[in-house]
């Protein structure tokens, strides 16, 4: 029996502490859901890339029969151009009927809860809900309450899984053309630097989780107030480098992020200093990584995180990313509605 009384030096005796285990997550409830990029296995990813290619090259009239007259709701609590439009085009491209509910023109304004809005959409016949929400974790709540397939179109500062998928598709097209079946080595030897406001970025979080799964090295780069040191602890294959030029020199891909003024919550960032240290301009790119693929999830702020000559330059993949959004989202929407509930949990 262990003695408990060690008043002289209580930290000297470490009792074996067998804590109660953390409860296993029941999510996702529906195998067609895409809540976190971490829920997708390499097989699941390969399937999505394969379907994206197939659907993209299919005859539009034939494609429109796949989900003909199926009902999909887009529930948007935050403004969005790219994500909303491409989800909508993707769903319509597959023949589905879509309806957009946004927080500014619905009962959400009158105080309706996310649960009740979700149940209402389900009662109206929605078979899947695409959710953009300002609160991290909102898609998990919506799934738990509706048990419908939920597609996370960005939740607070947490995740944006379809963005990470379209980023990866853009990277593969550029560096591994023709590859659609991915493995743990597909991106071996590739270094991707993500630059800027990592703390508030759901795009960064999803990419940090996804890219190392394929063997890529991810370098996070930004000032301390926008990139806490513990970001490196969130997973394997992720490191922090404060010096942008040192990071850029090692990179084959550089992903620039916008400073999210709407999420700074009182944090002061000296933009002039930020530009000096972290802006991607033509001179920097030509000097340190002339071959690197330049990505940005948008919206871009020209003259802040990157300059116009880079955004419009020959190595810019920014519009290709937007373009890829439609194919990726077609694959993800198709998966949501055609994956039967009995196909089991995580893909």
């Amino acid at each position, binding site marked *: 029996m262990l003695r408990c009384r060690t*008043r002289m030096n*209580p930290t000297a005796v470490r009792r074996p502490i067998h*804590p*109660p285990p953390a*409860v296993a997550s029941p999510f996702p409830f529906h195998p067609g859901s895409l809540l976190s990029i971490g829920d997708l296995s390499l097989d699941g990813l390969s399937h999505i890339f394969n379907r994206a290619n197939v659907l993209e090259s299919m005859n539009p009239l034939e494609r429109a029969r796949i989900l003909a007259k199926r009902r999909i709701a887009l529930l948007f609590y935050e403004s969005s151009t790219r994500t909303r439009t491409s989800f909508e085009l993707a769903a319509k491209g597959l023949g589905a009927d879509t309806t957009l509910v946004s927080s500014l023109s619905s009962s959400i304004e009158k105080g309706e809860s*996310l649960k009740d809005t979700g149940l209402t959409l389900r009662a109206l016949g929605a078979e899947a809900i695409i959710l953009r929400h300002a609160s991290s*974790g909102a898609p998990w709540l919506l799934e738990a309450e509706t048990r419908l397939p939920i597609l996370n179109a960005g939740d*607070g500062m947490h995740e944006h899984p379809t963005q990470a998928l379209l980023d990866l598709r853009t990277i593969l097209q550029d560096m591994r053309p023709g590859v659609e079946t991915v493995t743990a080595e597909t991106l071996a030897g590739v270094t991707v630097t993500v630059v800027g406001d990592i703390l508030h970025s759901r795009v960064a979080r999803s990419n940090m989780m996804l890219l190392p799964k394929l063997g890529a090295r991810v370098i996070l780069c930004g000032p301390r107030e926008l990139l806490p040191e*513990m970001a490196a602890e969130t997973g394997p294959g992720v490191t922090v480098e404060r010096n942008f030029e040192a990071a850029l020199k090692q990179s084959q891909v550089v992903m620039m992020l916008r400073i999210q003024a709407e999420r700074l919550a009182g944090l002061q960032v000296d933009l002039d200093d930020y530009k000096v240290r972290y802006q991607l301009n033509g001179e920097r790119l030509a000097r340190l990584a002339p071959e690197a693929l330049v990505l940005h999830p948008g919206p871009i702020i020209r003259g802040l995180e990157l300059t116009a000559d880079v955004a419009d330059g020959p190595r810019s993949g920014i519009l290709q990313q937007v373009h890829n959004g439609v194919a990726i989202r077609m694959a993800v929407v198709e998966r949501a509605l055609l994956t039967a509930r009995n196909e089991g949990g995580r893909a």
Partner: protein
Amino acid sequence: MTALLVRGGHLIDPVAGVDGLKDILLRDGRVAEISAPGKSKLANGAEVLDATGLTVTPGLVDMHVHLREPGQGHKESIATGTAAAAAGGFTSVAAMPNTVPVNDSTEVTRWMLSPDRGAVVRVFPIAAATRGMKGETLNDFAAMKSAGAIAVSDDGKPILKDSVMRETLVSASRVGLSVIQHAEDTRMTAGASMNAGPMAFKLGLRGMSNEAESSIVERDIRLVTELRDARSHLHVAHVSTAAAITAVRQARRNGLRVTCEVAPHHFLLTEEHVGMYNTNAKMCPPLRSAADRDAMIEAILDGVVDAIATDHAPHAVHEKEIEFERAPNGIIGLETALGLSLRWLHKEWKLPLGRVLSLLSAQPAALLGMKGRGSLTVGSFADVLVFDPKAEWTYRAAEGKSKSRNTPFDGWTMQGKVHWTISEGRIAYVARRS
């Protein structure tokens, strides 16, 4: 009032130094006689309660609960909250003042103490330290005390201003009340909904740092040190970080009247239990790192912690079924504190039964100066818990007595089954026969 003889049980009373078979006679709300089994001289005509094979101990004391009345009866009422207390073995609960309106007036205190509230165990209102709990103007502590307040606190919020906290410590000490501080520097926790650390970063949630707690504890201890002559009693509510425990430990070595409590969730759970945004694992202070949780266990085992308190904080189901960041803080705890303490502190980590019971009864009773409670001697209040300390059972929140269900412990194995809870001689809870 009829007399009640609790017969044949094994009495454990750490304060009185009793650990053996005794019969206890309760009459007129007090303990009338404690005798060897079958040797009672006064038990003629008393109703008999057969405690053979069971353990008898002073009723438990929870120095930190939220009963939600007045004003938030949809979460809990004084009647349902005290019923939950009785089911958990508690005979005394100290109710925090963050009600609607705030308990900052003698009217509210008296309203809470009125028999019309239907309390089945004793309620001890804690008065707000400042008007409206705004941290600016002190309440009239003498008046609040005479109305029945047992301590002062702005729990749920800290008293941030140095000058106001200093004044609170001096004034409370003058009338013999303890000051209970909710240690959280809210200037550092705006918008935060869980512990700061890799888990919060991963979930995309803003985090509360350990310093937000420990800096207030350290500031308060500095004030108590400066006010040494006033003999102020500072009690730190729901300690959750190793740094805060270290500060309390040091203050005690320096001979200051600084005490603290730890809640079961802080010695059992970590930030990992937030899982995928489980709002029933959201409270303030938040679940911390494993290192902090281990420090809570160490501090309980080595005696730095004075009391186990639940911070019972009921919220209606619909209030917790919302986005994690928007969900209110708090979980219920009255019906699980004993079962979790025995299952983990006693069985798993070998804290002697008498010490577990003392942390749940005698020590908090003494801290708050509850005379005649926390020990069973002739003349003391007939607050008695009769339970089976070895029995294991599974907690089902849906079957609880509390009006609310917000707990992360649903389905957990508990140890120690309450058979009877007796409050001032009246049976407040009887277990269903199974």
